[in-house]
């Protein structure tokens, strides 16, 4: 198979060659994704192997009898399956939430407040002469990003590394910092203040900036602002270093304001470094189905968005859900322990290709086909570009779409349209 799409990170590299065993053009993360590993053997209900149909029957029984089931995950599956998940949450009067809520959801809140001066990775590759990585470490999280889209990419107008100013801002000197022309080491939690300082300098008010902000001297900040303003086309890539720390959504908002300020002088865009290959789909599909991207409650028969109550973590900690359907995700590994605590108390149904930490606490486990290898569909790359992932291996496993389709049919039969 030529031009296969890697279904690991938000890069969604589309130049993979895979013969069923060995892949070419894969980074270490992609190589791990495409290599053979332990699978869930078959559907299991309370430790007993059953058929797909029976597992789905039992799962539907739990979901329709729950007062407010939580449907969570979706970042590692295709848009067609995500759509069914949103509809299923609506029919069940439950909560739809997805992996963004422990990841880039604060970016969504910032986008609601300030808008998003966005672009595509193609623009970064072809046009950017200033590339900033703020609170992100693509060398470890998106390994081919620097070579395909940003640092070393040979673009139409910007023809390679020597024509780019690369800036890394982080609290630690990451592997990515070694690719940079300039590295600014900041104190944890001071991003907001640094954005404000840069905005002040660019707006001609450097006298309002103290001698040092967040561990960076005023002189250094002036130098930084100069590089930004003198860029012809700049891209600010940012990661969880902003969304996971003090300030969170407000920091991203201030970054957007910095980009707005820069756009009065030159041309700048921002791009969040999205983690899973289709976490953008888990947001976008929910937005076009229900009006919101995540933390959506359907218990009143219509969609309501309220992140401090309806994200999976909050709903679990507040004990506001009494059953959970987890698909294409592993919250038992990635949620704070108090949320996992609630997950161990309620019935959990899991749909996933691989056994993981959530499998250990799940009552019903339904194995699924590997998206992009054994199952096809549409995904959105981190910049929102839609791509078709392919199926090139036959399998006995049902796809996420097939599993959710039968679930939804059965729920509609029991609860009505």
């Amino acid at each position: 198979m030529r031009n296969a799409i890697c279904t690991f990170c938000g890069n969604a590299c589309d130049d993979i060659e895979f013969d069923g065993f060995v892949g070419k053009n894969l980074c270490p993360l992609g190589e791990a994704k495409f290599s053979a590993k332990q699978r869930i053997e078959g559907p299991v209900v309370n430790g007993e192997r059953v058929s797909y149909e029976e597992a789905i029957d039992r799962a539907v029984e739990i979901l329709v009898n729950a007062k407010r089931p939580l449907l969570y995950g979706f970042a590692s599956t295709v848009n067609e399956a995500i759509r069914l998940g949103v509809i299923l949450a609506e029919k069940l009067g439950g909560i739809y939430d997805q992996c963004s809520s422990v990841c880039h959801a604060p970016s969504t809140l910032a986008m609601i407040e300030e808008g998003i001066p966005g672009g595509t990775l193609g623009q970064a590759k072809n046009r950017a002469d200033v590339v900033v990585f703020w609170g992100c470490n693509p060398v470890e999280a998106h390994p081919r990003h620097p070579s395909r889209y940003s640092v070393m990419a040979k673009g139409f107008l910007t023809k390679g590394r020597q024509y780019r100013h690369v800036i890394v801002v982080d609290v630690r000197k990451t592997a990515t910092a070694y690719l940079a022309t300039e590295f600014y080491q900041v104190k944890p939690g001071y991003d907001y203040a640094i954005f404000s300082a840069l905005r002040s300098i660019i707006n001609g008010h450097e006298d309002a900036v103290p001698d040092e902000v967040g561990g960076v001297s005023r002189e250094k900040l002036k130098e930084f602002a100069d590089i930004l303003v003198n860029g012809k086309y700049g891209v600010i890539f940012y990661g969880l270093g902003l969304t996971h720390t003090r300030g969170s959504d407000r920091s991203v908002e201030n970054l957007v304001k910095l980009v707005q300020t820069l756009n009065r002088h030159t041309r700048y865009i921002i791009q969040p470094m999205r983690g899973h290959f289709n976490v953008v789909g888990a947001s976008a599909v929910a937005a076009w189905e229900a009006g919101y991207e995540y933390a959506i409650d359907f218990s009143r028969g219509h969609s309501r968005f309220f992140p401090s109550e309806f994200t999976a973590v909050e709903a679990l900690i507040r004990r506001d859900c009494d059953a959970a359907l987890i698909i294409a995700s592993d919250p038992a590994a990635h949620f704070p322990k108090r949320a996992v605590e609630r997950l161990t108390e309620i019935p959990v149904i899991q749909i996933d290709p691989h056994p993981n930490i959530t499998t250990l606490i799940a009552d019903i486990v339904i194995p699924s086909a590997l998206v992009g290898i054994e199952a096809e569909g549409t995904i959105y790359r981190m910049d929102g570009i839609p791509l078709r992932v392919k199926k090139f291996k036959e399998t006995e496993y049902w796809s996420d779409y097939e599993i959710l389709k039968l679930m939804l049919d059965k729920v509609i039969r029991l609860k009505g349209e």
Partner: protein
Amino acid sequence: MVDVIVITGRTTEQGVSIDEKLTDEYTKAVALCEMNEEDMKAINVKEGDRVKVKTDSGEVVLFAKKAVIKDLELPEGVVFIPMGPYANQVVGRSNGSGTPQFKGIRGSVEATHENIKPVEELLKVVK
């Protein structure tokens, strides 16, 4: 004991073993506390020794790992735990945005002789 700011996040090793979480390889990749050498000296631990990280949200025992140049340099007073079930024993609350504070959590690190818990036991602890 030293006071630290805890940050959590992705690493290559964590990403490579993410679909094999029930293996030793994954546990080795995520049950780590990466630290500045000076902080390790202050609590008298060497690479591979066990340390206990404590925050307002909880505590967890991890293997100490020295932050080295060109790999994971960390300033004094900042420790890094790869994302996963171990890190999540000590991460903070969401402050209203719905997204937990996975980085920049105030805490402390001390040497310990307690064992690293297997993942199964972490789940039982929270039950």
